Each structure stands twice: as C-alpha cells, then as structure tokens.
C-alpha cells in the first residue's frame, strides 16, 4: 500500500512526462492497420537502409500491420529506451544489446518470447546468440546478430599471425616504428581506450585464452582476481611500457590507415574496413586470439536481439513481424531475411544454417575466423548491472594500463566493486 502511494506520488511528480499516455505506440483506430515501431541502433548505412528494405517488403505484403523503423546511434540507445519507456512511449519492438538483457528483464521492459518461438530459437540458433537473449533461463527475443572477437593483423607489418603471447610481443616490437622525438608512428599492437568495449572485450578474450573466467559459475561472484587475469594485464601493461602501443589511439582510424600491426576487435569490423581502406584491404588478415601457450585461444561473444515491449498494445502483431523477419526467407533466398541482411554487412548470422547456406561455395578466410570463434567464445555475461560492471572493469584496467594501480591491486579492486554490484 505504501509502495503504491509512493508510486502515485512519483506519477504526480513526473506528471508532465506521464501525460504522454502509457501505450507503447499510436495504434490505428477503427479499421486501419496496426502500426508498430521498431527501435534499434541501425541509424546509419549500411545497417539502416538494409533494415528499411526488409521493412518495406513486409509493409508491402502485409496490409494489416505496418512497421516503422526508428534508429538512434548505439551510444544513445539505452538512454532513448529508458526515457521513452518511463514516458510510456516505448517502441513496440526493441533491439537491445545483450549486455542490457539483465537490466531489462529486472525492470520488466520486454515480454518473454512465446513458447513456440522460444523453442524454435533454442533449436536453430547458436549457443552464443541464444545466451545473449536469455536471462535466468527465459528467452526474450530473436537473436539478430552475434559478434565474436579475433586478432586483426596487417600483413605488411606482421607477415605471420602469432600463435602465442611471446610471438605476439616479439612481432609487436618488430613492427613498431617511432619518430626522432620518440613518438609512436606505427604501433606493433594496438590497445585503445576509445570505448568501454575496446578495453574490456579484448581483455576478456585474452582472459579466456589464458584459461580464466570473469564470473564464477552461477554468476553471483567474480573470478577476475586470478592468476590468469594478472597474466593478461601484465601482457597489456608490458606492451604499453615497452611503448609498442598507445592506449590513447583511436584504433578505428589508426588500423585502417596502416599504422597498427595487430589489434583485437569484433567481426563486424570486416564490414566497415573495405570502405575505409580501399585497395589496402588486401593487407588485412585475421586469426584466432592467441593464448600464453601454443594451441590456446580465446574470444568473447556478444549479441543483439529483437524483443517485444511489455508496454506494447500489439504484442501478437509484433511477434508476427519478428517471425517473418527472422524465420522467413525471401523468394529464392538461401537464408532467412535477417541472416541474409547480416551477412551482407559482414556480420555472422546468428543461425548456423544461414551461415552455412550463405558461405557455401565461397571462401572468406577473414570471416571464417569469427565464425569459428562462435564454437569456443565465452559469452558476455548479461547479468543485472551488466553495463555498470563493464564500466568498473574498464576503469580498473585503465588504472593498471596507466600505472595508477598495480596489476594485483587493480584486479582486487575490480573484484570488490563487482561483487558489491552483484550483491545488490
């Protein structure tokens, strides 16, 4: 009762926003078609026009349901979902980053996938893709893309990819070039602090290659204060101290410019690099992320999925559209609409059958690295407070990189802070 009255006060306090009504979207009244909105981070080419093409096809062939895509930049997606949801104006279909699934599930933003759809997804999608859309055993939507991490190298600077950390260090030192003032002109190995993912995802990939884990099984405590994690941070800090890398570099510009020998990044980059590099793209090579010992390898998998807003008045129509988009095939197509679209922009489709059908008869060695990583990559944990836990890890890694904290202290602090968040 007390909670209810406080909620009422909250409603009064934010009356201005609540005036917007609580329906997810404006629906057609009377005999008009049901109008759905889809909010995603597909705000720029090639993703935006690619999705728009599919939606146009759906709208042409379905008179009773019409879909409108709304794209915002990834950096603004979470804020947009939050603000619109609080105002009762959330989109009918949302495409969240898997990391936010725990936060969304806790707040009841999305409805669980209907039983039949959930069974179909579990049966036909990769384990990593299903994991990104699942929280505590409940599946919240269709996985739309899965990314894994691999080692990108420039064949001009690093002719043969390393298979151990020793080889990686040696190749990095050899490829590094400095000017007469000591400034790094060519980085042998690129680490970057441009975004949280640039810091955290390569660390977690290397952690797996060293046999370590971020969380204990069950996900209630962190396992990051470990010998494996110390070895990863020692490796990265050693490269920074040896001045073969500068974390301040924007890797999205430096690598395509041929100024980086090796770096760790996700598979989606393959879709962007050809346009950025032109003829120099032939120098791009990819390989599994090596471990401390020969044969060890590691990768991180993360993904996006499309789910239906719990506030939507047209949940059945939304699932109907999602099923058409993710399960259906266009006439004469070898793979599902979503799979074909994702492959066209250089992303591995979340359905292995799509990948097999689309890569049949073709040889894309670079993409094969990331497809193969689906089998062993550790999934990014999509627990509650996932985004904040990622930020905590990022800050402590940066503290070690910059010498603000010793490696063991940085990992101990990470463990304490993450455990505090997990206990909430």
């Amino acid at each position: 009762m007390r909670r209810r009255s406080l909620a009422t006060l909250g409603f009064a306090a934010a009356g201005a926003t609540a005036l917007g009504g609580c329906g997810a979207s404006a629906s057609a009244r009377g005999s008009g078609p049901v109008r759905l909105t889809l909010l995603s981070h597909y705000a720029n080419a090639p993703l935006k026009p690619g999705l728009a093409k599919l939606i146009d096809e759906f709208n042409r062939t379905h008179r009773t349901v019409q879909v409108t895509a709304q794209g915002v930049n990834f950096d603004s997606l979470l804020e947009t979902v939050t603000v619109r949801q609080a105002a009762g104006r959330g989109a009918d279909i949302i495409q969240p980053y898997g990391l936010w699934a725990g936060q969304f599930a806790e707040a009841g933003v999305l409805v669980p996938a209907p039983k039949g759809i959930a069974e179909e997804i579990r049966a036909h999608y990769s384990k990593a893709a299903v994991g990104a859309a699942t929280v505590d055993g409940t599946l919240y939507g269709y996985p739309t893309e899965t990314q894994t991490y691999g080692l990108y190298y420039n064949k001009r600077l690093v002719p043969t990819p390393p298979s151990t950390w020793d080889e990686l260090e040696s190749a990095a030192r050899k490829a590094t070039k400095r000017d007469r003032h000591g400034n790094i002109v060519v980085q042998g190995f690129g680490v970057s602090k441009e975004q949280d993912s640039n810091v955290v995802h390569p660390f977690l990939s290397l952690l797996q290659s060293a046999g370590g884990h971020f969380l204990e099984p069950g996900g209630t405590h962190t396992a990051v204060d470990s010998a494996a994690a110390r070895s990863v941070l020692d490796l990265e800090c050693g490269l920074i101290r040896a001045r073969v890398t500068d974390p301040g570099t924007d890797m999205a510009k430096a690598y395509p410019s041929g100024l980086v020998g090796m770096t760790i990044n996700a598979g989606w980059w393959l879709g962007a690099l050809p346009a950025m590099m032109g003829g120099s793209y032939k120098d791009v090579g990819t390989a599994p992320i090596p471990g401390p010992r020969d044969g060890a390898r590691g990768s991180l998998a993360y993904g996006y999925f499309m789910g239906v807003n719990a506030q939507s008045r047209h949940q059945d129509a939304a699932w109907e559209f999602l099923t058409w988009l993710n399960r259906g095939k266009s006439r004469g197509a070898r793979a599902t609409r979503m799979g074909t679209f994702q492959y066209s922009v250089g992303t591995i489709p979340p359905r292995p059958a799509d990948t097999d059908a689309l890569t049949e008869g073709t040889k894309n060695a670079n993409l094969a690295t990331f497809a193969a990583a689906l089998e062993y990559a550790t999934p990014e944990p999509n627990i509650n407070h996932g985004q904040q836990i990622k930020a905590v890890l990022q800050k402590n890694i940066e503290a070690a990189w910059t010498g603000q904290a010793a490696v063991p202290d940085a990992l101990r602090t990470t463990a304490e802070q993450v455990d505090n968040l997990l206990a909430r």
Partner: protein
Amino acid sequence: MATLTTRAPDRASRRTTVGTPARRGRRQTVTAYLFLAPTLLFFAVFLVLPLLFALLLAVSKWSGFSLGQITPIGFGNFASILGRGSTFLTPILTNTLLFAFGSVVIALLASLVLANCINRLRFQGFWRTLYFLPIVTTVVAVGNIWKVLYEPTGGLVNGLLNAIGLPSVSFLTNPNTALPSIVVVQAWTAVGSAILILTAGLKAIPESYYEAAELDGAGAWTMFWTMTLPMLRPTLLFVSITQFITALQSFALIIVMTGDGGPADATNVAGFEMYQQAFKYGDWGTASAMAFVLFLVILVITLAQLWFFRRKGEETS
C-alpha cells in the same frame, strides 16, 4: 423619522470606512497572487515537483523504466555512495572540486589581468568581443579543437614541445595530466564572460580616485592593489560564485574531450557520474543521492565564498 433617516447612512458610511481597506487589501492580495500564478505554476512544475521527485528517488531504488517500480529503501543510496569502496568521494568528488577550483582560479586571475589591460587599450569593444568568442562557440567544437591541439602525435602543443627538444606528453590519456589539461580549456572558455563583467566593474570605479592617487605619487601596482582590487570585490564575488557553481555542475567538455571520464576515472566529475548512473546504469536512486550531496557541496562552497568576502566588509549587492 428624520433621526432614523440620518442615522442609517451613518452606519453604512461607518461600515464602508471600516470595511473597505480590509476588503481592498484582500482583493489586492488575490490580484497579486493571480498575477504571480503563472510564475508560481512554472516554479511548481519545473522546480518544486522535480525537486520532490528527486528527493523521493534519492531514498528509493528505481531503474528508470516504469514509475510504478519505485521502491523506497531509506538512506541506502547515500550509504553506498559515501561508504567504503565507493568511488564517489574519491576520485569523483575530489575531481569535481579540483576541476571547479582550478578553472575558476585560472579564469579569475587571467580575466583580472586581461580586463585591466583592456581597460587601458583603445578599441575596447573589439578586445572584449575577441575574448568573448569562446562563449558563443559550441562546447563540442571547443573540446574537439583542444583535443587536436593536445594530440600526442601531430598536435600543436606537442609539436611545440618537440621543437624545443622535449618529448611528447599524452595530455588526455595520462591520468596525471588529463584533468589539468581540461581545467585549462574550461578556464579558457570562462575567461570571456569574466572579462565582460570585470571591465564593467572597472568602469564603475571613478576616474577621479586614480587622478588623486596619481597626484599623491601612487604607482600603478599600488593603485591596483589598494584601490582597484578592493573596489572590484563585489564584482569578483559575483564572478567567482557564478563560475564555481557552473564548474561544479559542468561535464559537457569532459564528455567531448575524454568520452567517459577516463582514463581510470581521472576526469570523472559528479555531474557526469550522475548522468551515467541514471541513464546508462539505470540507477536513478544513486544518481539522485549524488545530486543532493553535490547540492550540499555547492551550498557550502557558496556560503564560504560569501563569508570570505563579507569578512572583508563587502556585501553581495
């Protein structure tokens, strides 16, 4: 009958003379409130209600998605941000104070010197406009230009360092230099408005004082120290208070220049952390608790400034 007819108007007239001022007073009060109503409504909707809502959130847990999910938890949010292991006091609040104090001190000193120089120059309007330009430039442009200037390779500042034989400095990626580098930019952007206000203050000092002092043989430094500075004190008080409050809340420049308050929280400030907690981590309770702590910090600093200047015998007029 005649008596009655004469007494009746008397009573009426007495009622009128006693009742009219009170009724008129009430009517005036009602009229005043009617005139004030739009402003009061504006303050109620945009100040009082959000303040009450923030207060409610500060003692609650809320993910920001649905108003029906606000759960009261008492002072838990305050305990978690002020407790052991929290990064809010150190480094975030410390950074906030260093950022504000550094930028205000630099801007105040620079603007004091520049305003005095401008006050003696010809074409004063031109110089004031020149120094005011950073204020009318968007913070995104300012931040990005300074980011390029600070670039370790190819940046102008490092180019100058290299030219005199010094090695490059990673201004924005070294935790020791990142915050001071941004403080300089914040001060640079704040100098323009401070100059404008200080030159107005300088103009208000009568020229005859300086002429009398000159006749008594006072030098330029003596005149500045014993006349200009004391008479500028109310203006300096205004500039320092407003700039302190602005700097304590500001984080746009930090977002542009370091993106995430890094490296390793070295440039993270309270305003930015609040934004992150609310919109990125979905922890509106913690964000609101931080807002109230920051409010207390601003209040204490402003009161301290007022006390300092009043101790010297100045009012805030």
